[in-house]
């Protein structure tokens, strides 16, 4: 009775809600292959017309940055406020810029 069945691979699901928007991560699910992952994603994540396009990718192919290293990883951006438009002081009479 306690026979182990191999677990299907895990897939991450991305959904485009409307034309013109990005695909956004919706969640994850198990499926034997990509076709089944898309069908299951339709049933699990778009039962109320939440999407018009679905991407699935096997979770094992996703590589993530390490939160423990975020201080050093994002450090290069910290002292570069000149990348933001508000850094530049310009007279009020200057328009359309």
């Amino acid at each position, binding site marked *: 009775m306690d026979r*182990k069945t*191999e677990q299907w691979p895990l897939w991450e699901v991305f959904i485009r809600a409307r034309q013109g928007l990005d695909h956004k991560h919706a969640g994850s699910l198990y499926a034997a292959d990509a076709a089944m992952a898309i069908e299951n994603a339709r049933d*699990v994540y778009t*039962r109320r017309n939440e999407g018009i396009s679905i991407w699935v990718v096997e979770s094992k192919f996703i590589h993530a940055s*390490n939160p423990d290293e975020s201080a050093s990883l994002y450090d290069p951006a910290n002292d570069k406020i000149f990348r933001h438009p508000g850094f530049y002081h310009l007279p009020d009479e200057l328009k359309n810029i």
Partner: protein
Amino acid sequence: MHATEQELFDSKISQEIRIEPKDWMPEEYRKMLIRQMSQHAHSEIVGMLPEGNWITRAPSLRRKATLIAKVQDEAGHGLYLYSATETLGITRDETIEQLHAGKAKYSSIFNYPTLTWADIGAIGWLVDGAAIMNQVPLCRASYGPYARAMIRICKEESFHQRQGFEILLTLSRGSEAQREMCQDAINRWWWPSLMMFGPNDDASPNSQRSMQWKIKRFSNDELRQKFVDVCVDQAKVLHMDLPDKDLKWNPDSGHYDFGEINWDEFYEVLKGNGPCNHERLEARKKAHEEGRWVREAAAAYARKKNHNHALI
């Protein structure tokens, strides 16, 4: 000085910054979440059984389509929650095994039988209603994946409660026999619904911890009181009675007082001695076993396709 991991975690909690799967968290926090979230997932799945019982006998095509959609939503809720639970480092297989071995609990309410069609209405109104009361504050739970799953779930729940109330409303405006059926279902589901909020605050040590960690936002008794208050007014719309002779408006507290819950019954059902505990667990195990060949065949087919693909 460098903040310790514990201090970092505590400051995130106090600043309402969500904890995410790869962040450091205390072992106790992780354990509490695994227990609560898997129990929650199991409840969604087992909860399909009492309602599934009436799908083939729904009184009209409209009711049947609605009930199928609701039960399908509950399956979805179970899946969102299992996925969220897995981010804590427990596998899907392990959580399911814990359920089947009787080690993990699910909400006791689903150990009561659905005897008449009116029970489907009472479940939607009272059981989903109590669930919503519990779940809305969980949308702000400190653990990100749990909170996100709850947001999705809460969006879908409101139709569940409304369709249930509509069933009861229809019965309440029907024949004498239908009105009796309606009242009978409310009588049977009222007290178990109040038990869904869990033991009284002074008998629920875990829940303080959970509130410190901002998993829970309100205590069991606070939520139960809110639920009683809204239900009393809703019952008036049905012209039905709630089966509690101690139910009375208290002008000092601004709430309804209500009678003592039968905690012996609660703990008996929790221990496995409710009317349907055995049946529910057997149904889950049977479904799992009988679905095994499908899972195996799909895996074999995927392997074969991959193999053929590799040969091209």
